[in-house]
Each structure stands twice: as structure tokens, then as C-alpha cells.
């Protein structure tokens, strides 16, 4: 089997198949997953599955918040994650970019494992901070509030990461930043300090800042929940524009309207498990499970 050296964190994979040094070894599940993905990659010629969550469990002390989540997000998908409080939506999102460490289960970003790597003996070991940070650059995240740093201007906020993390020269970073600020309609506020901006404008700056790293997937953790009702519209408009442009998005939200109109798929989480998953029509209008139906009847009046 031809396994090229370039594929991901399994350089030892090459050694497995050399003829002279054949050692008998048991193929672990991680190997099978990786080999599968390599085969897919070779056949598809592109990484289609941007985020893949496999059997994710998360305990906070004794409390099991996530009880086995499986999710696949393909490129260009807009996935809305709905559910009542405490169902584990935010935790799942934070596990994707390793802000929370999964207790068990795996997460793959564009085929690369997040937060762990498989060493030469086939065991799962925690990954170095450097590689975690590198992989985090492929994921953009917008939080519920207090996103924007108050001691820098809007433009300063947006170019901070490209300049200091990706080491892009500031001229180029400025151009990228202005392009994304244009996209969220905030180009006229580029030199203002965040203290002068409204909540909706701050969230849009947060979106532009996350976009400036040009990530493969954008995560939104209830971006409009902390906003005044009149400011929600501008943020949803910006997110809708992103969806039209083909950004891969995973949105945890309570805005059912947004979920219905903009998303390709809706995932309903209940008690740490994926209760229902499907197109908006299936999940929101014709839910199958009882809990799901209760939830939407309350939300939609």
C-alpha cells in the first residue's frame, strides 16, 4: 500500500508497511479510522468532512454532560444546534476547538485529530500545545459576549491574530481585515474603540476577527443571546451572508427562524445525546421524538 509521508500525524504509518522491517502489530481503531480517511482523501481528492465527532463523552466531575455525540459536518454545511439549557450544546462546541477537554471520544478537524495524537505504539497521547494551537487556527469561534478586547481599536482587534499568530506582515493583514470588516458592514468603524460600539456591532467585529484567520469552520456559541432584540437582526444578517458565501458553520442558537431559513441541517440535543438530526423541515416542523416536539411547540407558539 502506498502511504505518502505527507498524511498527518502518522509518520510511523510508513514504517508499518516497509517490507524489510515488518513487525506484527494489531491495527487499532485509530489506525483504521486514519487509513479510512487517507483512502477517502485519495479517492475524493479533497477533505470533505470538516468536523467529525466520534462518540464524544464529557464529564464535569461526576456529571456526564455529553453522553456519546456523533456528528459529521461537511464542507459548506450550515448546522444549527438546538436544545434546552443543560443539554450540552455549548460543551460540544467548546470540545471541538479543545477549550474543553473531552473525557473520551475523538474529534477530527479536516481529518486531523484534535487534542491528541497516536504515538508509535498506537496509543492515544495528548498533543502538544503547539499543534493544538495550530489546529485551532482552522476553527473560528464567536462567543456569546465579551468577545472583543477593549484596549485595541476594531481594526487592531481584527489584525491581532493574523499578525501575531500567522506572522502575516501588517500591510497584508490590514487588507484582509478591511475586506472582512467590509463583509460585516463595519468598515466605517475600523478606528473606533470597542467602548463606542453597540452589542450588535461588537458581535459583527467578533465575526470579522474570527474570519480574518480564514478558518475552515466557524463556530457560533449563542451569538445573539446576550443582545437587545433590535440588535439581533444585524448579527443574523451577517451570519446569513456568511452562509450564502459557503462558509461551513456550526451555530448553537435559540433563534429558530435562523435555523429554519438558513441552515442545511438541524441537530436537536437533549440530555447530552443527539435526539434528532435532519433538515429544518424534518426536525422543526415534523419532529419525531416527544421531547423535540415539546421543545419546538414551546418555542414556536
Amino acid at each position, binding site marked *: 500500500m502506498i502511504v505518502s509521508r505527507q498524511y498527518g500525524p502518522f509518520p510511523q504509518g510508513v514504517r508499518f508497511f516497509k517490507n524489510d522491517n515488518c513487525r506484527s502489530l494489531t491495527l487499532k481503531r485509530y489506525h483504521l479510522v486514519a487509513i479510512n480517511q487517507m483512502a477517502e482523501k485519495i479517492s475524493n481528492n479533497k477533505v470533505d468532512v470538516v468536523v467529525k465527532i466520534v462518540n464524544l463523552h464529557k464529564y464535569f466531575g461526576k456529571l456526564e454532560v455529553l453522553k456519546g455525540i456523533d456528528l459529521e459536518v461537511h464542507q459548506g454545511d450550515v448546522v444549527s444546534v438546538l436544545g434546552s439549557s443543560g443539554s450540552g450544546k455549548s460543551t460540544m462546541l467548546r470540545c471541538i*476547538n479543545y*477549550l474543553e477537554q473531552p473525557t473520551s471520544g475523538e474529534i477530527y478537524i479536516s481529518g486531523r485529530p484534535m487534542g491528541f495524537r497516536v504515538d508509535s505504539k498506537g496509543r492515544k497521547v495528548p498533543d502538544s*500545545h*503547539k499543534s493544538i*494551537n*495550530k489546529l*485551532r*487556527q482552522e*476553527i*473560528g*469561534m464567536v*462567543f*456569546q*459576549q*465579551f*468577545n472583543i*478586547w*477593549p*484596549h485595541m481599536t476594531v481594526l487592531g482587534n481584527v489584525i*491581532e*491574530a493574523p499578525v*501575531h*499568530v*500567522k506572522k502575516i506582515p501588517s500591510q497584508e493583514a490590514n487588507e484582509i481585515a478591511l475586506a472582512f470588516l467590509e463583509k460585516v458592514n463595519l468598515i466605517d468603524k475600523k478606528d473606533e*474603540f470597542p*467602548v*463606542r460600539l453597540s452589542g450588535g456591532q461588537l458581535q459583527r467585529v*467578533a465575526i470579522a*476577527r*474570527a474570519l480574518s*484567520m480564514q478558518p475552515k469552520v466557524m463556530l457560533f456559541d449563542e451569538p445573539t443571546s446576550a443582545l437587545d432584540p433590535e440588535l439581533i437582526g444585524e448579527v443574523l444578517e451577517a451570519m446569513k451572508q456568511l452562509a450564502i458565501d459557503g462558509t461551513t458553520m456550526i451555530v448553537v442558537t435559540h433563534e429558530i427562524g435562523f435555523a429554519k431559513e438558513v441552515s442545511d441541517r438541524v441537530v436537536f440535543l437533549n440530555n447530552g445525546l443527539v435526539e434528532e438530526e435532519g433538515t429544518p423541515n424534518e426536525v422543526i416542523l415534523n419532529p419525531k421524538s416527544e421531547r423535540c416536539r415539546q421543545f419546538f411547540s414551546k418555542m414556536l407558539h
Partner: protein
Amino acid sequence: MNLENLTKIIDIPLFWEYRQTYISGLIYNFYVFALAGLLAVTAGCFISLLRLSRNRIYRSIGTFYVELFRNAPEYVLLVWMHYVFPLLLTVLLNHKFNFSPILSAVLALGMAYSGYFAETFRAGIQAIPKTHIESGWALGMSKFLVMRRIIFPQAVRQMLPETLNQFISLFKATTLVSLISVPDLLYQVTIITQQEMRPLPLYSSAAIIYFVLIFFFSTLVDMFSEKWRTRGMA
């Protein structure tokens, strides 16, 4: 009301005659203030990091230190540091120890105020919302980068007014060092009084000088904090 006698007693030329001594006394005040301030800020930084750590042992060491030095009166610490501590060290280490007054003054005041500074620094760092830090991590910034570019600038702005107020308290406390014979302003004035036997003008002038200095600095600090508050930073 005997106003003529009063004007005879308040003797301005006397004060002018001793201006050299007054100035040298004040220099000692500032000297102790600078060194003790340096020690207090350094120790305070370190202790605040202990207080913020995730390790329970480090946290309790930090808490013990802060509680000890915030609750002990500065004068008691001063006297203990000058008279008792050298004796303790001599007995323990079998080597004659003698602290000069300035050394014990700097050590005692520095450690006393490091407790206050540690609390101020800790509060400044904890006042930063967690999401600011998490959004730095989410963008792929390393912990050091987040500390340098996001936590430090914000924390310094947050705690600067309070820190400056603590410095003014420290300056006020430097007058205590006269009691262990550091030749500061008050000590010089006491010596002069013993010679001149004219307590009213001498002590009053010392008091007025201290008051004017401290009032001047506190007004500066207030104006500075106000400017920052209106700019929307503090």
C-alpha cells in the same frame, strides 16, 4: 485670644535656617519609599501569581502570606524586623546578624505592602472576563501571547489607580521609620527640637510639608484615574 504670642511662636526664619536638614530628611523618606516600593511590587507580583494558581498548596501559601501581612500593623512589623529578626537569625544560623535601620525599614515596609499589592494585582487580573482570554485561545494564540497582548495591557489599566493609591499609603507609612532611627524628616525634626526646644514651629512645619506632598500626589493620581475613566478604559 493671645494672637501676638502666637505669631512670636510660629517662627518662619527658624524653619528656613534648618532647610538643609529638612531636605536631607525628606530624601531619606523617598529613599525608603523607593526601595520598599520596589520590594513590595516584586513580591506582590509573585504572591498574586501564587494566589491565582490552580495548585491548592500554592494558593494557600499565597493566602497565608497575604493575610499575615495585611493584618499585622506596620509599626509592629518594623520593630520586629529591626530588633527581633536579627536575633532569630543569629540564634538559628550561628552567625552574628545586625540589620541597619534602613535595611529593616525597607524589608518591613516592603513586605507589609506586598500583601496589599498582591491583592490589587490579583483583583486586576481576575477582573478580565474569561471570554477575552478564550477568544485569544480560539484564534490559535499561545498562553504566553494571550498573557502578553491581552491580559497584561488590560490588567495594568485596571489596577493602576488602586496601585497608585497604595503607593501613597506606603509613602505615608515611611514616616514610621523615624521610630527605628532612620534619619528621615520626622527624626531630624525630633533631634532639632531637642536642641532648639521649640516644638510648635518645627513639628508643625514637618506636618505641613508631609501634608502638601501627599496632597499633591493624591490629586495627581485622582486626575490621572479620572482621565482614564472618561476614556473608557478603567
